[in-house]
């Protein structure tokens, strides 16, 4: 395999695997803490089943952590062996690989203890192994490679992951416990204690995030002027969403104490959404670990003036430039002409996918991309409007999911102009380019979920899971968009684009979970959520309509 492609692929896969690792790690540690702080001590009030389910969940999470960590170490070692000609032993001698091996070892023992002994697993060894996981994970954070203030940053990284594990990692066990318990005393016991645990987790996150802001971001202009700052703000925005939901649960517990148990279903629904948003934060965190802290990026910061200038509303671009004036076709035509003049057998390719170089771009490419985003904005706004009309009771508007099919065809034709059917590059050859691969699969998924949702809307599909496809894919797509970056060599231009994509991602996540709430709850909450998500779609459409690359 081409070595450059291997390093590209490593960068790409390592973010995904890292996101999964954080999820598994948090659920392992959060599950173990839930077991020993809540489920076991309160077993007399809530019954033994909560502890049994929690132990099983933590055991599986530890097993998943072993798999994720093994994948991380294997990926890194294979890239080092292939590109730096190291032996396996030398590759595994890297500090990060040693930390990974420690996590694998601790995870295996932890998983074995929890599977073998369940709720009788010995408390001290389990908690010590969880501590080993946390310390080893801290050795693969930014802090481990810092030259200055390393001790305080290592402590903050440790605290941050601990807080995330207590709170977000504990939520799946909390949701499971709410489903297992069937009486008011039980719900109250679970809700009240998890509320207090969550507060400790939130405190750990807030204190450590303050340290990161001070040492890694340092200046207010870095919040919008660097990729690290923008991603940190996106995490903060989702953290606020989580806090709002957490406050909703806190209120529900208060109502339970007052003698009303009508709030229990709401608590369950909110906690489900907390899992979704919490895991989105974990993937944003995985992406954040792969960009340099703001303080290191002294040049190439985006100024406030540039942000305002780029986002000032202008009329959308509804006419596309011609395909042959784009940079790659123009360059290919020039190379072909040169080859013909020299009587060469074949011309050099203007762009070799996967070779590790970014394709050339010109003004027409920018216009092409803006046109794509603006028409996508028209489609998405239309979807939001039709969904709103449908919500108001207009029956024919229930066919709105079919508009997604139009969007899919449009994206298939336009997203990668250098590729078949528009360009010279073959369909399969182009899939070596990770960005093209992503676009192609996105088109496939858009078609799939539009047909799903359409069948749900016209009443052809009565199963309970089918309506969940649309909100889940919307929310997951939004979370994935958070970590998307356009492969543009100019750091400033790439960041200005990211500044538009981040709110898009946040509104998509909000839209997905609002729709989820509409389906999963009833009464006023469901009605409000039902009106909210189409509005979020319209906002996404309007942001797309104002998108610019120059």
């Amino acid at each position, binding site marked *: 395999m081409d070595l450059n492609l291997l*390093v590209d692929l490593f*960068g*790409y896969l*390592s*973010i*995904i695997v890292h996101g999964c690792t954080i999820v598994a790690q948090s659920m392992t540690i959060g599950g173990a803490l839930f077991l020993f702080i809540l489920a076991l001590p309160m077993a007399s009030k809530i019954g033994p089943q909560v502890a049994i389910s929690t132990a099983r969940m933590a055991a599986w999470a530890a097993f998943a952590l072993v798999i994720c960590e093994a994948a*991380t170490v294997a990926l*890194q070692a294979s*890239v*080092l062996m292939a*590109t*730096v000609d190291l032996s396996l032993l*030398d*590759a595994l*001698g*890297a*500090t990060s*690989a040693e*930390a990974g091996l420690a996590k694998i070892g601790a995870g295996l023992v932890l998983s074995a203890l929890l599977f073998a002994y369940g709720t009788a697993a010995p408390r001290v060894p389990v908690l010590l192994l969880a501590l080993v996981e946390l310390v080893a994970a801290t*050795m*693969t*954070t*930014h802090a*481990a*490679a*810092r*030259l200055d203030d390393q001790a305080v940053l290592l402590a903050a990284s440790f605290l941050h992951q601990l807080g995330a594990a207590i709170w977000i990692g504990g939520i799946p066990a909390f949701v499971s416990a709410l489903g297992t318990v069937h009486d008011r005393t039980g719900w109250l016991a679970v809700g009240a204690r998890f509320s207090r645990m969550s507060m400790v987790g939130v405190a750990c996150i807030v204190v450590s995030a303050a340290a990161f802001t001070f040492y890694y971001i340092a200046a207010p202009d870095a919040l919008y002027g660097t*990729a690290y700052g923008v991603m940190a703000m996106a995490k903060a925005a989702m953290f606020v969403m989580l806090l709002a939901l957490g406050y909703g649960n806190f209120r529900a517990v208060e109502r339970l104490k007052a003698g009303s148990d009508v709030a229990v279903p709401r608590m369950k629904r909110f906690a489900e959404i907390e899992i979704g948003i919490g895991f989105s934060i974990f*993937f944003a965190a995985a*992406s954040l*670990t*792969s*960009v*340099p*802290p703001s303080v*290191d*990026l002294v040049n190439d910061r985006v100024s406030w003036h540039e942000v305002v200038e780029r986002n000032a509303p202008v009329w959308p671009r509804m006419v596309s430039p011609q395909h042959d004036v784009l940079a790659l076709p123009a360059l290919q035509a020039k190379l072909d002409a040169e080859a013909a003049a020299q009587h060469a057998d074949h011309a050099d390719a203007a762009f070799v996918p996967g070779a590790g170089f970014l394709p050339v771009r010109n003004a027409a490419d920018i216009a092409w991309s803006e046109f794509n985003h603006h028409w996508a904005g028209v489609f998405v706004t239309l979807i939001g409007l039709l969904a709103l009309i449908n919500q108001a009771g207009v029956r024919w508007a229930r066919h709105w999911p079919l508009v997604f099919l139009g969007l899919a065809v449009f994206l298939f034709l336009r997203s990668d102009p250098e590729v078949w059917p528009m360009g010279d590059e073959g369909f399969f050859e182009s899939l070596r380019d*990770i960005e093209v691969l*992503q676009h192609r*699969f*996105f088109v496939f*998924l858009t078609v*799939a*979920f539009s047909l799903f949702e359409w069948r749900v809307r016209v009443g052809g599909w009565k*199963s309970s*899971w*089918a309506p969940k*496809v649309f909100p*889940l*894919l919307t929310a*997951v*797509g939004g*979370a*994935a*968009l958070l*970590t*998307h*970056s*356009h492969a543009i060599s100019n*750091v400033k231009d790439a960041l200005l684009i990211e500044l538009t994509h981040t709110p898009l991602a946040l509104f998509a996540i909000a839209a997905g979970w609002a729709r989820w709430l509409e389906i999963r709850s009833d009464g006023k909450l469901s009605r409000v959520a039902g009106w909210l998500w189409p509005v979020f779609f319209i906002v996404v459409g309007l942001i797309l309509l104002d998108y610019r690359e120059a």
Partner: protein
Amino acid sequence: MQKISRRILAISLGVAMLLPLSRKAEAHAILLESTPAIDGSVKPGPSAVHLRYNSRIDRARSRLILTRPDKSTELLPITTEGSDDVLTSQIDLAAGHYSIRWQVLAVDGHITRGDIPFTVEAR
């Protein structure tokens, strides 16, 4: 059927999660300064290569490759002295356009790379 459909849903979600992730990892360990400078020039004959990064680098697991004007490549030996954020080597070159491709492993486990095109001036 219900079970299979659920599995399809789970797989779709998993794949969707993979979708728009991109090549950000290339930007992790950043080159703060270098000799030769990017697009800079050096005198012909022996000279030092000095690359400074924003993070601690695992030198034994990093590499420097010189590309000559005729596109042939040569592995540059990395010296072991200097602080943890620095890679150094030696070159002895005649006039022409060269490039150094660096690939580093940061201590936190991120592998990143970049290119330093430069010119060796004619005497």
